[in-house]
């Protein structure tokens, strides 16, 4: 009989957080299968071996340290400051996962104290966080929150001893090489420059007027769907760009334009090419794309 491989020992620690990544993680319907390969030394909600009080008393070794929430040196858990607790746990961890945009880049809570709050490796796009020196063992899972399947993918890759290819922010390319735009059901409207004139319809692209960040945002939200069924853009909500270091931008429901052209080009598209293409595409009137998809709901 093959012996059961040892379970990965995982610690989940929270910095300045809303617990959104914790609850996102609990949405993975395959959680039971995942828990066959990992065990939590500490988790903020799930039953686990050690309480926070135990954890700070004697810092344990771990295979994976998951950090959720933004970093601030004097922020405390169980009476111990992050400037002490996080490096101690990180040194004793084989792998570190920065879970969510707060842990990755500072996220929303950085806005309240931009000088002192950051991600664990990156502060916005600058690599100046407290774990910069050990960034080789950090995997970034940005997102507000990060998708539960992104986390289980990384844990599976670590369990299998496979190398994870990463981008400049140490985000797995398999998850973040896509744009949120890829797989969006409104792509055809984007291509033919057909604007969604208002919210609450299936038709039209949200990029031209409603502030959709899909063409700028790295993430597989439209490939690995949220809660297995949908995504922001599929429910007609513009992407807010939550996986990027610049999150949260301002004026999220409007697109800045210059002479009625989006002032920021879709990622990697030179302005000149875009203008030529947009001019040509707009000159076509494709009747199908100007009509309702389903005329009669009832």
């Amino acid at each position, binding site marked *: 009989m093959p012996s059961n491989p040892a379970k990965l020992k995982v610690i989940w620690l929270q910095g300045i957080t*809303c617990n959104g990544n914790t609850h996102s993680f609990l949405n993975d319907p395959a959680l039971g299968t995942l828990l066959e390969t990992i065990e939590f030394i500490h988790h903020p909600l799930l039953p686990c071996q050690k309480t926070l009080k135990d954890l700070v008393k004697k810092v344990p070794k771990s295979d994976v340290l998951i950090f959720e929430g933004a970093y601030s040196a004097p922020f405390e858990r169980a009476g111990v400051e992050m400037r002490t607790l996080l490096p101690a746990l990180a040194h004793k961890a084989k792998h570190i996962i920065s879970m969510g945009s707060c842990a990755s880049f500072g996220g929303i809570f950085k806005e309240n104290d931009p000088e002192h709050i950051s991600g664990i490796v990156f502060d916005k796009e600058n690599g100046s966080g407290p774990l910069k020196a050990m960034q080789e063992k950090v995997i970034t899972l940005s997102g507000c*929150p990060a998708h539960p399947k992104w986390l289980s993918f990384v844990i599976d890759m670590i369990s299998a001893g496979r190398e994870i290819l990463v981008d400049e922010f140490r985000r797995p390319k398999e998850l973040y090489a896509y744009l949120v735009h890829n797989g969006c059901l409104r792509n055809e409207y984007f291509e033919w420059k057909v604007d969604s004139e208002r919210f*609450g319809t299936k038709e039209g692209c949200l990029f031209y007027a409603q502030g959709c960040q899909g063409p700028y945002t790295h993430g597989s939200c439209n490939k690995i769907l949220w809660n297995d069924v949908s995504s922001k853009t599929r*429910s007609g*909500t513009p992407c807010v760009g939550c996986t990027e270091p610049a999150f949260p931008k301002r004026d999220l429901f409007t697109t800045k334009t210059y002479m009625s052209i989006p002032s920021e080009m879709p990622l990697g598209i030179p302005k000149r090419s875009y203008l030529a293409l947009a001019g040509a595409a707009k000159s076509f009137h494709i009747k199908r794309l100007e009509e309702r998809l389903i005329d009669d*709901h009832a």
Partner: protein
Amino acid sequence: MITHELIERIEGEAVLDFQTDKSGRVQEAAIRFLHFRGIEAILEGRNALDSLVIAPRVCGICGHSHLIAAVRMLESLYENAGYPVTLTPKAHALREITLSCELIQNHIKWLYLVMLHESGKLLGEEPPVALKALYVTSQVNQLCALFSGQWPHSSYALPGGVTCDPTHIEVMQALKILSEVERFIEDEVLGCGTELFESHMKNDTLGTLKGDFGTLLRNFERLELLDSGKSHGRFLVLGNERIAMAFDVRSNAQPDLVSEDASQTFENGGKTYAKNALYNGEFYEGGPLARALVQERAGISDLYRIHGDSAVTRLCARVEEMVLLCAQVRQLLTSLDLSQRSFIPPASIETISGSGIGIVEAPRGSLIHKARIEKGRIMEYSIITPTQWNLGNGPSDNPGTAQKAMIGVESIAKASLIFRTFDVCSVCTTH
């Protein structure tokens, strides 16, 4: 003797400072929350619509309630500025469906991750990870996401409606998920049909329930806590009904009688800004028990008459609300008229100045968002969360709702469990 107890597994942490007598019985309990994030300050200066993205990030477990509070605040702002916003019945129903989903999943997590686990631990029995409960909450959140795009942290509600334009495919999928959830509640939580559950409440025979809720009540019985946890007996619902109830006397609740009080706030190096929320200058309890009592729902009202606002009534109210909400979601899903519009565009936010207030019945009670806007920019933003009502920290001669419920309990371990019956949320409190 004074003991400081760190309370974990409550959406963050709190510290309870207990004053006990020689036998260990609780004489006084003070509640300290440890952290502060500053969401109100983060919102100020931004476009008012950005609140629909930022405000849900107050809390990972009830962010959708914050979204709905923010959108109602914006709609009231439009109304006050003389530009009334019209919502179709469909848009209204979709918001109610997704909001109800958030309450249902919250209550299931509270029951399994917090109450069964912590009461078991106190009895020396540590239950394993409640995978069946987590699976069903993932399904409830899937039902929500069919319309809202994702859970947690969707931003699908905007002044004038919702962004989604669902078809019958989503509605049929939602109904199937709902059937699974209802089956889970009957088979696993209650161990009986909902009518029998109703009669158990009426006849005060809940202890015989075969499901996991029965186990929880028996845990409380073994700990001799079923009739502990009595508080002031003052209840408040500020959501759709706006009713206050004190000493069984009901009155229409006025949002302008709500105040915040920072005099009992522990502010140690800026670590917490948890303030008390008061109604008419007094502590009131919010949440499922308050909602059931002011709506005069039969089962909970029967229990209240026998047991007052003790642990058994408070625990049961949260479970009874799951049943009620499932029935409401079913009714809303089956009566949706998909031909109605999802969204009716209001005037541009840049043209709007004034003040707005949005109130929602969130899982733990009444949630209030208030803001002052000038030409679409947020000048001031103020949030009062449900846990501020229940976990407000008063002086010893005027304890808050949860504080009062802990006084007289025979040990700090048991008092800590009573504390959890309020479904504590640290991140909301320290927004």
